[in-house]
Structures are given as C-alpha cells and as structure tokens.
C-alpha cells in the first residue's frame, strides 16, 4: 500500500518536472489567424510578404451592422524568407500568428517568372498550412490584391476566399488549384503545373478593348484584371497561369481555360458564344456540359508525339429571339456544325499555344504515353516534358445540341 503511494508520488513529481519546464500550453485565444499570404518581390532580391490577419472582435453577434471592411488587416513586411517575415510580424502583433487557417497563397507574377519551387517546398514543409489552400498568381502587387479582396455579399474574407473558387464550376473561366495539386504536378514526370490567375481591376482603363464592348471575342479573351466590370469588388479571378517546372511561362485567357477544362474532363458548366448560322450579324449563346470524357489517342511517330483528341459535349441554347425555330432538326444540325468548328479551332489554338509557345504539358498527356514504357529509366530517357513541343495535334469535336430551355420554338 505504501509502495503504491510512493510510486504514485514519484511519477507525479517526475511528470511535473517534465511538464512545467517543457510544455507551453496555448489556446485559441493566444493565436491570430492568417487567412491569406502574399509573396512579392521586394527590392534587392528580398521578399515582400503580406499577411492578411482576420480580426475576430467585430464578428460577435451583438454588432450586427459591423463594417465588413474592418474584419481583417493586411500587414506587409520585407524579409529574406517567409519565416523571417513571420517572425517580424510576430514582433508587433499581440498574438502569435497561426497559419492553420490560411486559405490562399498569392504569388506575384514577378516572382513566378523567376521560379517558385523554393517557396513551395518551404510552405509544404510547414505542417500548419493545409495542402488544400489555393494558389493564385497575381498580376498586381499582392498586398494590393489582398487589401481589395472583399465582397459586400460576404461578411468576412475567409468565406469570400472559400466561395470565389467555386465560380469555376459555373463559369468555366478558371479552375480550382490547391497547393498539393500544384506541388504534385511540379514533381510529376508527365505533367506540368498551372495556377489560378488573379488580379485587381482598376477603374481607369487604358485598354483599347474597353471601347469595343459588344465584341464577343473580347469577352472571351479576358484574363484577370482586363474585364470591363465596374463594381465595388475589385478582385478578379479568371484565366490560368501556365508553368514549366516552377517558372511561369504564360497565361491562358477565358476561352482557352474552357478548352483546358473540356480536355481535362473537369468542365461542369460554361457558356460560349458562336456566330449564328441563320444570320451573320447575330450570335447564339450555348450552355455547354461534357457528355463523355475526352478520349486521347497518342502515338509516337519518329520520336514526336501525334496526339488525337475526341471531344463530346452537350449544348443547350440560351439565346432566343422571335424567329427561333429549334424544333427543326436541320437547324439544330447547323448549330452543331458551327459549334464543332468553333470549338475545334479554339482547342487547336490552345494545343499549339501550350505546345509551341509554352512547351508545357499542363493537361498531363504524358500519362497516356507512360504505359508504353516498361521501366522507369526508359521513361526518364524519353523525357516527355521536353518532347511535348514536337507534338502534332488533331481534334474532333462532336456537339449534341439538345434544345433550348423553356422555349423550344417561337
């Protein structure tokens, strides 16, 4: 009996020594939560890191009419690395910064052009950062981007960040890319990484496209920051930034992103505009969904890949006027042919852009070729990623125009 008590006391004594010196128990009150990180190029080869810190005091239920602009603050600091920047910001915030709820990582175009693998490896090495946070390449300064990131539809920025990527589901102008996606594509031997393109839209436009509002081509050629929206929300996310290994080599605009989504079987719903077969001056809007997965047939001819793609989409007609007659199968067939040729030209344009201009296989077509090789060394010798620029393409689109929506014939 005595033995038990002595042993118990000894254990408590030893544990107290261990615990009191070693453990610092921190609770949720001791942390300030960073919701976004921005990485810019500072002067003289050092970084300019911005942290968007959520302030939670105005979120209480009592203050119903709180000003949403005050729900987060952006702190920018120049340092030689992300961790040094964290330490510097920690010196003047009262709470310790926690990256556990970081939603997006914004990297400026300048840094992306110089290679971002160092920063990514550092970020992946941190266990706090969720691999599901999104990567955005920004065409403007990151602190500007973060400061403008707010909406009058959501009260705090985290919700805004969570929702804004879902626009990809119904516009098709961008795609949701997470840190783990990007990182795994960077390490992959049969794909190249790509990222979301974002920017801030300034009101004073010197863009010549602003005058030709009605040109439908212009709308489809937009990338982030170039659209002619006038709104309180300034941040735009549209288009894709294309990388070769860890360096940014180009951008894709809206219609090219739609082609990318169709080819990678990630399209949920998008709208395209084709010239009307019945009247040259008119346009028809179609809502596209994917009918079947795109089939690829890739052969290696004389060391060069010959890539054939078979695309199948379903379309429904959005535009109606007083002469629309879509119960006639000939009319539907004509629309289908026009859509096929339109999509084929856009997809071919996309293919040659990624292959010849960028030499970046962001679709990951290498995975269809790798089954032809038996050992790893053979595959590495073939060097698919550099061979991609020698590729030839052939596209076949099969559209099935189903009908309009509520009106079938007027």
């Amino acid at each position, binding site marked *: 009996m005595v033995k038990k008590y002595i042993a118990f006391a000894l254990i408590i004594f030893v544990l107290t020594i261990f615990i009191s010196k070693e453990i610092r128990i921190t609770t*949720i009150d001791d942390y300030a939560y960073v*919701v976004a990180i921005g990485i810019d190029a500072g002067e003289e080869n050092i970084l300019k890191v911005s942290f968007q810190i959520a302030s939670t005091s105005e979120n209480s239920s009592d203050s119903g009419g709180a000003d949403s602009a005050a729900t987060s603050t952006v702190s920018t600091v120049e340092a030689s690395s992300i961790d040094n920047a964290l330490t510097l910001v920690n010196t003047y915030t009262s709470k310790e910064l926690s990256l556990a709820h970081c939603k997006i990582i914004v990297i400026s175009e300048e840094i992306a052009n110089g290679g971002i693998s160092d920063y990514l490896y550092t970020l992946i090495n941190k266990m706090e950062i969720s691999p599901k946070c999104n990567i955005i390449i920004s065409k403007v300064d990151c602190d500007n981007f973060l400061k403008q990131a707010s909406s009058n539809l959501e009260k705090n920025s*985290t919700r805004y960040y969570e929702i804004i990527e879902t626009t990809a589901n119904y516009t098709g102008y961008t795609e949701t890319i997470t840190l783990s996606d990007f990182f795994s594509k960077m390490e992959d031997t049969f794909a190249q990484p790509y990222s979301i393109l974002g920017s801030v839209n300034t009101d004073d436009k010197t863009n010549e496209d602003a005058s030709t509002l009605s040109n439908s081509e212009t709308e489809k050629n937009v990338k982030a920051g170039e659209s002619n929206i006038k709104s309180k929300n300034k941040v735009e996310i549209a288009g894709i930034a294309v990388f070769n290994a860890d360096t940014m080599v180009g951008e894709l605009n809206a219609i090219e992103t739609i082609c990318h989504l169709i080819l990678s079987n990630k399209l949920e719903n998008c709208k395209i505009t084709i010239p009307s077969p019945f009247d040259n001056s008119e346009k028809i809007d179609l809502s596209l969904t994917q009918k079947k997965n795109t089939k690829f047939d890739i052969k290696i001819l004389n060391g060069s890949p010959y890539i054939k793609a078979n695309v199948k989409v379903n379309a429904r007609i959005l535009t109606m006027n007083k002469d629309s007659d879509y119960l006639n199968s000939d009319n539907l067939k004509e629309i289908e042919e026009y859509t096929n040729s339109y999509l084929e030209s856009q997809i071919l344009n996309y293919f040659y852009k990624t292959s010849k201009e960028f030499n970046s296989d962001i679709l990951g077509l290498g995975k269809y070729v790798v089954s032809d090789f038996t050992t790893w060394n053979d595959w590495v010798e073939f060097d698919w990623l550099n061979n991609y620029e020698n590729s030839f393409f052939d596209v076949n689109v099969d559209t099935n125009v189903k009908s309009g929506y509520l009106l079938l014939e007027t």
Partner: protein
Amino acid sequence: MEKFKNFVKQLFSYTSKKKYEFDLNESPLENNNEDNFQNGLPPLEDTSESIFNSLHVNLEYVKSKYNFLINSDIKIREFHLTARNKQYSAFLLYIDGLVDSNSINHFILDPLMLKNKANTFDNAEDVVSTAISNNISVKRIKKFDLTDYIYNTLIPQNDVKKVENFEDVFNDINTGSCALFIDTLNIAFLSEVKKYDKRGISASQNETVIRGSQESFIENLRTNTSLIRRLVNNENLVIESTSVGTITKTKCAICYINNLTNQDLVAEVKYRINNLSIDYLISSGQLEQLIIDNPTSSLPQLIATERPDKAAHYLLEGRVLVIVNGSPYTLIMPGTFFDFMSSTEDSNLNYKFSNLLKFIRLLGLIISLLLPGLYMAITNFHQELIPTELLFSIVASRNNVPFPILFELLLMELSLELVREAGIRVPFPLGQTISIIGGLILSDAAVSANIVSPILIIIVAITGLSSFALPDFSLSFHVRISRFIYIFLGYLGGFLGIAVGLFIHVAVLCNLQSFGISYLAPYVPVSRKRGNEYFIKPFWKKEKRIDALNTQRVRKEEDISIKWKQEF
C-alpha cells in the same frame, strides 16, 4: 537500521497478489448434444406421471420435483385425515405467498383434521338392497368410496377438482392452488385458494417504461418472491433462503432456474453470500459492494433493478437473482457492460425502435464522456480541425471572458453537479425554483456578465443531457467521474492525452470480470455463438442465450418460431 532494511525490502520486493479467480468458461457443458437439435427445442422434462397410490411415494416425488429441501417457500403440511372415524395419512402442498392461509386453515384443514359431524362414523350403512332367505338376511351395501366421500362432504371449498396426474397438480400449484394428497388414493384434490398482492404494488419510480408492466418490487421479501413466481410460472424456479449479518440476520433469497442456470455460477453466488462476516445488512446496495469481484472499481458490476419483469427476463436468460429483505432493489448477476446500456423497453417495442434508442444511448455515452475533453484538446492543440467560421465565432465570443478555458469549463461542470445534487434533496414545492435558478440565472446571467462564453454553456448543457440518456444510475456516476479525468488529459496532452485516457479506460473495462464472465461479453472475447449483441434482433430471431454464461439450455427459440406462418 532494521527498520530501514525492512522498509527497503518492502519497497522493492515483489509478492504476487493472490487474485481470486473464478471463470465460468472452464466448466464443460453438460448437455453437449444441444448442437444435435438443429431445428427443434430440446424437450422439457416429462411430468405426465400419474399420481401413485402410496402417500409415501407421492411425497417423495413431489419433494424431488419441487426441490423441497432447498426451496424455502414450498410448504408441505402432513397430517392425519379423519373420514368415517378412520384415520388416513395425508399431506397438503402449496406455495407460501401465493395462497390465502385463512382459507386453507378454515376450509381445508379444519374439516379434515378436527372431529366433527361430517367425518365421524355413525355406524349407518349404505344399504342398497336386502335379500332374506332361510332366516339369513344378506344385505348389499354400497362400497364406501373415500374419494367421493371427501369430495362431497369434507371439503367445504367452492372450487375443488380431482386430478390424476402430476402435470395438472404442478400447473395449478404454480398459480396458487393447494393440493391434497391422501394415502391409498391415486387422485389429488386441488382447491383454489389464491391470494396474492396485486396493484397495491406501486409503479417503479426510477425505471419508467411506457409499454411494460407498472409493478415494482417492495420491501417485503415474500411479496417480491411471489411477483417472481407469477412471472416465471415454472416448478424449476428455485428460491433459496439464507441470512446475512450476525445481529440483523437479514433474509436474502437467491433465485435461479434449476435446469437452466450454470450450477457453478449458483454455487459461486451462494459461496460469496454465505461467507460474509458482518454485523448488519440493511440494503441490497451494501450487499452489492460486499460480493462484487472488484469493489474498488467505479463501474457497476451487478444489475440492480426494482422491476419484476426485468428480473424475470434475466432469470430466464440464465442469471441468478438475489433479493434482500427490506430493499426494493434486487441484484442480478452477472452483469455486463451492455446490460447497463439497455432498458426493459427494448424487448417490448419493435426492434427497429429499440435499435434507434440504443444508437442514441451509445451516442449519449460518447458525448457525455468525451465532449468536454475533446473541446479542450481541440482548442488547445488542434485548432485546424475546427471550420474557420466556427473558430472565429468561438474566439469572438471569448473575447471578453477573463478566464482561461479550463477554468471556465470546470466552473460550469461543477455548478452543474451542484444543481444536480441540490435537485435530489430539494423539497417538492421548491423544485421549480431550483430549475429556474439553475437554468436561467446561472447560465444566462453568467454569459451576460462575461464570466463564461456561450459556446461553453452549450457544450456543458449537451453533456449534461447526454448523461441523462444513460439508463443505469451507477454507470452515469462512473461517466461523471471519468469526464473530469478526460478534461485534464485533453488540456495537458491534446489528442495524445485523450488517447491515453481512452486506452486505459478500455483496458480497465477489459480487465474487469463479473462473476466469471468478461465485462465486455459477448464482444470481447469473440464467441461465434453469440446471443446477446448490443443491437438487438427481432424478437422472433433471438434464438440463443448468451454464450458466455454457459447455460445448460442454450436455445430459447426454434429456427422458425412463428409456426403459424409456416406452410403445410
């Protein structure tokens, strides 16, 4: 120096503790040909014997059938019956507690034993016819039939019948009749003398059900045994009587079904109860603490119930029931963890409703045990687990609270315990006031005064509600104690601390044994022939008894128990 030596020796020497070992699974089953009966139930014993002529044989037969030597409420009254001035040996057989003693005394024993006009012989003969020839008269006398004589004249009872086989005798005895056996007669007289307490017995206050019976045990031992007798209704139910305590000599009854229960279990129960040297025993709770395997554990190891239907159900499953005079709570042994999670309602309702209720109880157990600990662990170590919006609202609501989370949580838990304890002792008119004070003032005002955060109130309230969902009183006590340990473990070690607590908790549960069966039977150790899973099957599919009990009769239903549905 010697003292120091002894101290060091005591500290570092090892003496193995003699562990009291009793395991039900060691004894082989006696009826191993149970498996041969694929479809049918094994037959019960044959009781269609006819009554013998000799009283002595009848007496011996009846004594063996009813286990007279060990059964304490089976009464046999031997006496001499007077009929026509002749004396015949006879005996009365009845069950104490089910019969009206006054009726027996006045209307059976009195006319039979005492000499009165009816049973004295007046020398009159029953002459049928007379023939006279040659001065010799030959009378034809009707033969004296003792049976008719007694039946017609000597038993002034309103409901008497004559039976010729023991099956009828036993059936009626079990329901409260009294049987009269007479030497030289191969029939018995059964008279209806039923009297037992009905509906004076009140409804159970602590174990309420909606569709079950509304009777509960009372303090009187004989009334309680009669309640059990009525429900079980079989002669193999044995109720042995012993006494505990040198001063009070409190009567205890040990009940079991003779050809069903494992005899080792019965012997163990009797051994433990008969080997207690205490001065007095007042309640069954004290007896429970004296006979369980592990009295230092806070887990309940015997089922305590005040419902006779629950007690009869467990008796018929092969367990042993102990009733203590003066206490309405009876003890059922052995008890497993999953028994404490089930209520009597489960077998009365459709199995789907019962399974839903069982699922909710399981959820209640997990929430009441782990929710505050998990909250501490997540807010201290694993903030990334909480969705961002929720995290911000928690932080915002805690902005003005000056205390750390641990202090807040302990404060609220302790005040909840205080309210609970006060609620038991408060006089009835003040009951409502206490709930208003507890609910409104404590929680609402505390939030407005920024002493605690609203999210914590919700957590503590949900925890308290879940602990009331547990059907067993003792188990909820155990959960209340463990909850505080989990709070500290979660605070100190996050999920590592919670895992330590969970693992040691599970180890304690696995280590516990209750009267020879594992506490987590039938899941651990795994047995193929289970009979008592947590999620119950429909009543018509519960075919086997629990395997760990090693009962003598394993099957309780045929494969197809609903015979009317079977096609011919």
